[in-house]
């Protein structure tokens, strides 16, 4: 099903994009964690409180973010992370057929004794492995950030509770004492495994869609355009579904609803590391079990790849332009 020479060719072809996306994701995830340490939790809380009315747009409730674990978990929803993953998926997915057709190289490759399915699967293998590595690099960046960062925390002054009034009174009026501690003492990196998998599933779906559009098209720019148009449409549907109660049915029609990395972190931190991998458990604000969401994305991605294979095998290959 796979051709090792094609695999080698595709690895060579995509290595530059992979290296740039990988370096960006790793460095960003690391820096993002370091930035968490710069902003005092109290300050962060104060800032976030200003945006309470927009809480409904957030993937999880704000209170869950007032922990280092929650703040680090926001990395998976950062636009740069999403952008890099989407760039990889659309660039690689759109390349498989319409990209090669546009460059005119498909003819020479398919003049060799390889099947179209073999070509598509070899390409998909490199793209999916690349995607998996990119997601792992985000996790690795978070891990390195967590292990390399120290945070300062104010030590709460000793207090005394006044009877009847139930008020805590500090016993000292001095500046609160600060203590420095390692972030790894506050954050368990394993909590982000499920989020990393969710990010992979998200990318897998986008990759599948881009590959499908590529398999039926002959112009790469049109493939990219169609994929981006679908992506934006789904994003708008997600935004509208979140914004207006009357439009919340749109949430069930967009794949963005299946991307819940912060929720996965929350579940893992509250219910244990294995909880996000459950197909049976139910949690607040979740219609399905936690693992169902990435599995839906992966199933949709697999369907897209299957459709791409059928269409690519059935279609006529036009001569290079």
């Amino acid at each position, binding site marked *: 099903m796979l051709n090792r*020479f094609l695999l080698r060719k595709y690895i060579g*072809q995509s290595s530059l994009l992979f290296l740039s996306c990988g370096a960006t994701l790793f460095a960003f995830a690391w820096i993002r964690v370091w930035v968490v340490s710069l902003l005092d939790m109290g300050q962060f809380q104060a800032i976030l409180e200003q945006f309470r009315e927009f809480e409904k747009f957030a993937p999880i409730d704000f209170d869950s973010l007032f922990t280092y674990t929650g703040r680090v978990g926001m990395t998976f929803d950062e636009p740069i992370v999403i952008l890099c993953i989407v760039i990889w998926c659309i660039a690689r997915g759109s390349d498989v057929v319409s990209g090669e057709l546009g*460059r005119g190289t498909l*003819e020479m490759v398919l*003049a060799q004794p390889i099947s179209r399915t073999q070509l598509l699967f070899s390409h998909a293998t490199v793209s999916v492995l690349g995607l998996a590595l990119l997601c792992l690099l985000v996790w690795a960046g978070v891990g390195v950030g967590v292990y390399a960062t120290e945070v300062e925390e104010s030590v709460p002054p000793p207090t005394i509770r006044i009877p009847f009034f139930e008020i805590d009174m500090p016993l000292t009026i001095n500046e609160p004492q600060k203590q420095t501690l390692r972030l790894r003492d506050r954050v368990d990196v394993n909590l982000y495994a499920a989020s990393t998998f969710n990010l992979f599933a998200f990318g897998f779906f986008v990759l599948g869609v881009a590959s499908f559009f590529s398999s039926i098209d002959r112009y790469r720019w049109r493939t990219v355009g169609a994929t981006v148009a679908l992506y934006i449409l789904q994003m708008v549907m997600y935004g509208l579904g979140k914004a207006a109660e009357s439009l919340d049915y749109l949430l069930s029609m967009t794949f963005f609803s299946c991307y819940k990395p912060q929720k996965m972190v929350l579940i893992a931190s509250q219910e244990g590391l294995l909880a996000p991998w459950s197909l049976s458990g139910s949690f607040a604000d979740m219609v399905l079990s936690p693992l169902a969401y990435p599995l839906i994305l992966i199933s949709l991605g697999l369907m897209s790849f299957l459709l791409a294979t059928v269409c690519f095998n059935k279609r006529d290959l036009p001569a290079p332009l």
Partner: protein
Amino acid sequence: MSSEADTEPVLLCNGLSKRYGAFCALSDCSLRVEHGDVFGLLGPNGAGKTTLIRILLGFLHPTGGNCRVLGIDPVVDSVALRRQVAYLPGDARLPRHMKGEGVLKFFSEMHPFGELERSRRIADQLELNTKTRVAFMSTGMRQKLALAVVLGPQTPFLILDEPTANLDPTVRAMVLRLVMEARDNGRTVMLSSHVLSEIEDTCNKVAFLRKGRLAHELKMSELFQRHRMTALTSAEVVVPDALSDQVSIQTTRLSENQHRVQIDTSGDLAPILTWVNTLPLSHVRFEPFGLRTVYDSVHAGKFSQATTASSPEPLETL
């Protein structure tokens, strides 16, 4: 190859057609190419040559008819077919991120008949620097590289779509030598080209396509036995019965007592020359019947598929 495959022709097309909606790119094309043939495909742009080749390789699905290449139907198993065929596209484009050497290595590994050393040798013969990246190669260099890729594998069947496009005359001659070498090694070659002299020099059979139809088929040996004579005469020229199947005449009146006569001949010239010698002719011009003449006639639509090469029917009406 099996003995069954040996007895079958290398290529057998039967009523092959390809339609795109109302447009017919190839219509009812029936061809036969035997082992060891160097088969030329001729026709103007858009005649259907590349469409035919692309159907043979399984790139396009035919809308009518069928074909078998080395006993394999490309619709059923195009991979097995491409194991036996080396193909040079009309506009061969190669991965731009690779160096010439990398391209040769990649394609020789991809093909079971691939042989890197042979591809390198051909690249050397074509005076190609394989250390250059494809992206920085000129059109001619890329064509040479594609030729080295395609001529490397020793497949039984070789399909070349305009192999000498963008090449200088020296390299063209080298490519034609390589084609003849392939034939001498027992390989069958299908060659599409617009350069008639190349077809004349290399092919033993030629097919003319026009507007998606097979307009004419020709054995070059028969073409070489055909000649055209033009002359002026004042008397009527009548072909003797003994030569009627070898000679055809077209007469055009120039003035009251002067006509221009065009005599097309096929076969042995000796008896025809004896007859011609008895005619009251002046300004006689004798020339071999070149592929150009046939091509022009086909292009002008004066040939049908039924017309055979040995027929002495006039190719042009003056």
